[in-house]
């Protein structure tokens, strides 16, 4: 019989994720550019605010997340540029690959890039702003993972929306920023608590909020992505 049986969602997801990671690995120059851009952003905050160490330490979490947010625009745009080239995304659609697997694979790939970048930026932030981790590195890692997941899910969905527009580079931040501001605030607050201590036991609430935003963002992306990529 002609035709092809469709493989399961998890297997498709794993293949799409592996493909994205392989492409990132083969084009490491893009990853290097991302790291340099984020590092430069942290450096600019440090120079712009001058030698006020207390101010820098107080707001270090905010600067870290702004650097990650700006860098995420580059990473997200790039992840759909490779799909636009040669209409590769159309090719996957027509195979057919489950569009929800495409969303999960691409969003997890983007999250992996952002989490990796966050772990590179933490020692830079500590060095530049003179901060130390009051709670534990494990709690900082959980904050970074939850925050990056909250950027990557809506970022992937909106990158797909923007990828067909002429002004895609302008459209992506216009769509993304308003949506992720609440999650970003929670990530900044959680990071600040991890860095400066948690006398009021707020961290659990911020984690809960971040987890809630993630549930909403990933759920919406999972449901809406098939509609976005079909004409």
């Amino acid at each position, binding site marked *: 019989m002609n*035709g092809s049986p469709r493989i399961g969602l998890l297997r498709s997801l794993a293949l799409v994720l592996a493909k994205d990671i392989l492409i990132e690995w*083969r084009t490491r120059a893009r990853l290097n550019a991302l790291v340099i851009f984020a590092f430069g952003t942290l450096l600019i905050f440090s120079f712009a605010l001058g030698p006020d160490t207390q101010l820098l330490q107080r707001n270090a979490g905010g600067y870290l997340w702004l650097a990650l947010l700006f860098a995420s625009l580059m990473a997200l745009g790039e992840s759909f540029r490779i799909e636009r080239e040669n209409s590769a995304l159309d090719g996957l659609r027509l195979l057919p690959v489950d569009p929800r697997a495409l969303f999960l694979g691409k969003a997890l790939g983007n999250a992996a890039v952002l989490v990796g970048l966050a772990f590179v930026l933490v020692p830079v932030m500590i060095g530049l702003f003179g901060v130390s981790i009051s709670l534990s590195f494990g709690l900082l890692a959980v904050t970074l993972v939850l925050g990056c997941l909250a950027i990557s899910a809506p970022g992937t969905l909106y990158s797909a929306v923007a990828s067909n527009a002429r002004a895609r580079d302008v459209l992506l931040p216009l769509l993304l920023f308003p949506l992720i501001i609440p999650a970003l605030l929670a990530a900044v607050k959680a990071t600040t608590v991890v860095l400066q201590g948690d006398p009021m036991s707020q961290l659990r609430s911020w984690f809960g909020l971040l987890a809630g935003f993630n549930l909403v963002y990933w759920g919406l992306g999972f449901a809406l992505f098939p509609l976005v990529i079909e*004409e």
Partner: protein
Amino acid sequence: MENHPAVELRDVSKRFGAQWALARISYSLPRGQSLLLTGPNGSGKTTLLRLIATASSPTLGELRVLGLNVRDQREEIRQQVALLSHASFIYEDLSALQNLSLMSRLLGIKDSKQRAASLLSEVGLAPHSPKPIRQFSAGMRKRLAIARLLLKAPAVALLDEPFAALDPSGMGQMERIIRQLITQGTTVILATHQVEHGKTLCNLRLHLDSGRVAAP
């Protein structure tokens, strides 16, 4: 389902903005036939092939492929239809072998790497299989695209300008592959400007002009 035509169009129209690319096309293509689709640039050939492949949807009318409706049975159609398009649908940063292996794994083909390697041999790309696609010429990309199509073993093969960018040896190879598809019973729709060449391959012809069926 076996009795349904391969492709059935009833008053199918497609609009892009204010422009009608196809206007009220009606046609029925029986299974196992080979159709030559001709017409000048902008006549709607590519649009029609993309509609049949479910890459886009008709604005008006009813389109069925193997008896399945393109509006609500896309996935079933996609499992049985393959499109060779102007775009190659391949990843520039992966090698030819990695591209085909990925596709065959996504299609659930067992021994995906061996299958990919054997198809690369069949289209004459075996020596280039580890090279990234960025280093490929237009003709090599076309060969890879046909290997990608063959991977799927489709019931309906849609070929949009399959001879474009190919050298004489590549054209011969493409012709052999198309004949093989037809012999195997695959329904083939071939859109090309090389009408005389196409006539030697196909037993039916449909001519489009300004989005309408016209006399050739």
